[in-house]
């Protein structure tokens, strides 16, 4: 028996018999247990709740970075292009910081803490999503730089990862030290400093982009990654409680 035969039979049955009138349908629907959202569905669903402006700002920064890399026309083309990209990389973090601080900014934290996928889970999911976005942007910058310079992709990757991870770590440290609404300003300053510092590496006596220092770059990436993971775990752990204040006696 094939599909079209099946369909014919179904059609015949429908035409031959009257369907039963449902009894107590509203009551049944009220009591029925609906399938809950899985973690995977929740994870994917959160993409639409990340503000459009975060995506747009990130893309704008990415396009600006590509434009600036292209324009870099200093004597030492390789290094200036990398410096240009390195200067933009901290701002990817700033856009992400603003997004993760949203719950606190709009007073949603308390509500989110009482849900099935609580605030800690939500924060982790947002960090992962934005982290994936930033990694894609970094990869895009790296690949573009590969075509603009004669430096290997791996080296470009670590030259961009270091300022990015440094900014991530500094902003997370500040977020854990200063729990006020001013966290955006702290993070903005840190981003600015890291960004501009990338531009002024000429002031250093040594050429940090030469191959002989690659081992230090790799070491930096390793250390910063470890610190980052540790910080994220700590933040997620501490996201469970709220500070006492007079509003709790109200």
């Amino acid at each position, binding site marked *: 028996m094939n599909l079209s035969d099946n369909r014919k039979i179904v059609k015949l049955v429908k035409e031959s018999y009257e369907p039963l009138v449902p009894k107590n349908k509203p009551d049944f629907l009220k009591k029925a247990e609906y399938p809950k959202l899985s973690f995977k569905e929740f994870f994917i669903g959160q993409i639409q709740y990340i503000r459009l402006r975060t995506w747009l700002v990130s893309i704008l920064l990415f396009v600006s970075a590509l434009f600036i890399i292209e324009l870099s026309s200093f004597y030492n083309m390789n290094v200036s292009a990398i410096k240009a990209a390195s200067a933009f990389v901290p701002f990817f973090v*700033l856009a992400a910081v603003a997004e993760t601080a949203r719950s606190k900014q709009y007073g949603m934290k308390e509500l989110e803490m009482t849900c099935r996928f609580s605030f800690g889970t939500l924060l982790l999911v947002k960090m992962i999503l934005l982290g994936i976005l930033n990694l894609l942007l970094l990869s895009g910058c790296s690949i573009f730089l590969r075509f603009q310079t004669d430096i290997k992709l791996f080296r470009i990757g670590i030259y961009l990862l270091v300022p990015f991870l440094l900014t991530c770590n500094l902003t997370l440290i500040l977020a854990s030290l200063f729990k006020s609404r001013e966290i955006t300003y702290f993070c*903005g300053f840190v981003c600015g400093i890291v960004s501009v510092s990338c531009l002024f590496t000429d002031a250093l006596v040594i050429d940090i982009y030469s191959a002989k220092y690659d081992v230090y770059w790799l070491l930096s990436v390793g250390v910063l990654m470890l610190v980052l993971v540790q910080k994220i775990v700590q933040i997620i752990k501490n996201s469970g409680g709220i500070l006492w204040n007079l509003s709790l006696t109200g």
Partner: protein
Amino acid sequence: MRELLNLIKFEYYKMFKKKSLWFILAGLFGLSMLGSVAMLLGNTYDMEGEVTGTRYEEMQAERKNARALGGRTIDAALIQEVQEAYRSYFSQAEEISDEEEKEKLYEDTVKKYEPIMEILSQVYTGSYNSQEFILDLTEDDRNQFYETLKQKQKQLWEEYFFLTKEEESKLLDYQQQIKTPFIYNYGAGWMRYEILLYSLSVFLMLALAICLAPVFGGEYTSKMDALILSSKYGKSKVIQAKLIMAVTFTIGVTTVLLGIQLLEIMLIYGADGWKNPIQFWSLTQIVFPFNQIEAIGIYVLCVILAVLFLTAIVSLLSAKLKSPFGVIVICFMVIIIPMFLDIPEQYRMLNSIYRLLPICMTQEWNVFCHYMYGINNVIVPTYIFIPLFALAAVVLLNIWAFKVFKKHQVA
């Protein structure tokens, strides 16, 4: 007046209550301190990679040598003296095979003339560290040092700049006013300060953008705008107080920061050489008749006004945008992107506009560049135009910010 002062006091109070402000100011001052000493940290190495001393010791040695030449007039007699010293060195060095001995010979005979050689090298060869040329100088060459300098300056602006006839004529006038012969003094401190001013300005602008972004934007996010705008002074004195606070805060922080930086550098390098001509920064490129202290004064004024210009932009954006975050992002772009861009000089109009961006106003090569502003015969050099333009922009932008916040409707 008393009410206005009271309101200004409250604006400062709100500002200094923020922990982020203290963090940023501390970071800023820390960076400026680091900038002053960064070049003196670490060791010096010989050809084999062996440590020979610290950078600070090297600076001290250079300073000692340079001070020995202090007060000497750079004239034909001094050039001849330098020439003879180098002749003696080169002839003796040919016979020495040991590098260490050669190094010692160099230190004993010609090292003390290095500062003068740098100056001569720029004039006679166009590069900073040529040495062999000195052996070929004739008596005429020595006597014509300043004419050669002037010719090189003229050649540079004719070949590499897109100047109008009026600009060239003006530059020739300035050239005539340069006081010669030059008198040499150790001036590393002033030159170091001049180099650091640009990088310091960048950090300063970033910091001020963050500190002042909430001046109006913070009222929107904290929902105080309704209460402020419905109060007696909400549409007049309060806005004035905010703008005055922004301006005075900017001037205060900038002045203190630049002052501390100057003091630190003078303590480390010494205050010698304040009378040195500005040409010591770049002999063939700068033709203005200033000494170091005059040039630094003009440069600092341009930096302060450029920073004020940026603050005015921050105030306007803060009044227009509903959140300080947007202000910070836009201002960062306004500060950082022009550092990469380079509008080719043949597009004079675009290039002139580009050089009036706040960050460009803090670049020494822009402040003292050959290009001028004006129409036909009425032209002024950039170092005069920048402060005037910045001042006008500050006034206009602040008036605009005032109107924007006053007209804001709470929705």
